[in-house]
């Protein structure tokens, strides 16, 4: 399924939020790539910088954030520091977003049709009936009835809104779709319907995706490769099977162990320690304050990535 063509490359991405009381280092030397037709999962605790990475790719880091280093290549073209006008052409046409809160991502006072259409007309010269048919087709693709076309967002359920967002994202057949926790606000049944839609769209169109989330269960179901983030740093990347089978990084392990099960009751696995303040990262490994295996070497310098299995990298001094 996935070819080896890298459609997106994130190299050494550094993003800081310049608050009056110090810069928040929200992404620190993040390296990531997405191959054609692939879904890469980006997981990590809340506040670790997942959305920041996603927004950086779109060149939409909100103020006071700024990309302070690194490059982002889409189909080989570096888009960091591209002028706003050029960026507008790339956005949505090559890079689409399914935002974190679908509930609030649709403008409550304008109709679905208009919100779907304006994304299309901003980039393509489709008008009139052709445009309408296109929207109908998109709605159809995500399993929504045509009548949604003339509805307002508040008339839709959460799942429908999320599917509208998906329909919008695929409208221009983008190179890559970034889905920022597309289902976290939904309950399991609807979540599953939406996830199915996403997978379905993906296989049909062959787009690549970055799936952000913190639900390892859902990741297991959906993605091809997982990238684990912790406090602005990537700590482990690898094929989903490999990661679930062999989580190398202690944090990854923690994440997988913490998945509750409905099959058997097991005691909760509790870890101590706190994430450091992102404005003031420690020297050495970013996970040192919470790592059960911490040793002196961890406090000296950040560990480098090591390949542990095919395509499976980890940054930990243990290895």
């Amino acid at each position: 399924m996935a070819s080896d063509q890298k459609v997106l490359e994130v190299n050494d991405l550094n993003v800081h939020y310049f608050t009056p009381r110090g810069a928040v280092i929200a992404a620190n030397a993040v390296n990531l790539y997405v191959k054609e037709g692939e879904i890469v999962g980006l997981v990590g605790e809340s506040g670790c910088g997942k959305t920041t990475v996603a927004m950086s790719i779109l060149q939409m880091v909100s103020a006071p954030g700024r990309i302070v280093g690194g490059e982002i290549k889409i189909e080989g073209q570096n888009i960091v520091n591209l002028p706003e006008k050029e960026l507008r052409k790339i956005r949505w046409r090559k890079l689409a977003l399914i935002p974190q809160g679908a509930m609030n991502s649709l403008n409550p006072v304008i109709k679905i049709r208009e919100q779907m259409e304006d994304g299309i007309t901003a980039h393509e010269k489709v008008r009139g009936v052709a445009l309408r048919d296109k929207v109908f087709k998109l709605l159809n693709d995500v399993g929504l009835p045509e009548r949604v076309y003339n509805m307002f967002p508040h008339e839709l359920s959460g799942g429908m809104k999320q599917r509208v967002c998906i329909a919008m994202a695929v409208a221009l057949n983008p190179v890559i779709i970034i889905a920022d926790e597309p289902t976290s606000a939904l309950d399991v049944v609807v979540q599953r319907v939406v996830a199915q839609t996403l997978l379905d769209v993906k296989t049909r169109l062959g787009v690549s995706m970055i799936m952000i989330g913190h639900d390892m269960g859902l990741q297991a179901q959906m993605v091809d490769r997982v990238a684990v983030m912790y406090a602005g740093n990537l700590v482990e990347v690898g094929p989903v099977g490999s990661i679930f089978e062999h989580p190398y990084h202690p944090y990854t392990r923690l994440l997988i162990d913490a998945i509750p099960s409905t099959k058997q009751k097991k005691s909760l696995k509790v870890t101590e320690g706190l994430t450091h303040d992102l404005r003031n990262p420690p020297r050495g490994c970013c996970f040192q304050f919470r790592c059960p295996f911490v040793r002196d070497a961890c406090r000296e310098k950040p560990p480098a990535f090591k390949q542990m299995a095919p395509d499976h990298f980890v940054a930990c001094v243990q290895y």
Partner: protein
Amino acid sequence: MGGLTRSYFIQRVLMFFLTIWIGVTLTFVIPRLSGSDPTTAMLLTMMNQRGYVENADKIIESYKTSFGLNDPLPIQYIRYLGHVVRFDYGFSFARFPTAAWDMVTPALPWTLILLSVAAVLSFLIGVTVGSLMGWRKTPRWLQSILPISLTFTSIPYFMFGILLISIIAFKLHWLPATGGYSRSVDPGWNLPFIKDVLLHAVLPLISIVLTSMGGWALGMRGLMIGVNNEDYFLLAQAKGLSPARVFFRYGIRNAILPALTAFALGIGSLIGGSILVEFIFAYPGTGYTLYRAIQEQDYTVIQTITNLIIIITAAGVLILDLLYPLIDPRITYKRNVAS
């Protein structure tokens, strides 16, 4: 779709009449609180014209009786409510025998046209300026210039108006200084007159707009900042829409809703005119009439204008409330309307 539900409609209409009744009653009560006598002014004008007024007390009694001012208050109130319903308040007290309505009607079109254009313009400009100030993507140079336009708000209107007249009308001779039109044109639907009227309206318009848009801008800025953080706003940007479209369709379109209510509430005050505008620009209008009527305790004229204001305001709010479901489709689902 949201749309109008029956209970919503009934509630709004009830509200409409209630507001009017309260306002109308206050209009009856407030002028009477001041304790000064509506016939004083009449005497004063007579004095101005005749010098000596012999037997003033007799004249006053004679007028008071014929105006019904010697009746007990409840009776006056009931009679007054009758006036309100008929929309006719009889003679002006201070300008007998001119009817109260005749005091108002000649001035009304001037006031209405000038002020409604000014109100709309100041709203539109204020909203735009405020939104630009609250929008993250506004170019920095604009960001730093726009607040300057707000400082007009802090300059007393009359000072500002007079400065404007001295510079633009007298120093530069670009525009006529004051009045509604020149004495050389004939009022009517002819081109020179219309052109003349428009020219005369420019200065008052500019001064009203500049001094009043700040209020809208200030409020709008806050609302826009709120919208900036909304997810749909971000998504619109991510869609690669043009900044203008993001700004108008996703920014202003959403942020403006509360400001619209305030605007509707202000509609009535258009009738009240702007005394200062009319004073400084010698512009024909109801503001001065109202001012003079209040000064002279001319109850009937006060009531004519004030009640017109009240009814139009209430109607403005009613219409807005009824239109609101169209502007904000969520409305009948939300618990609290237009606030």
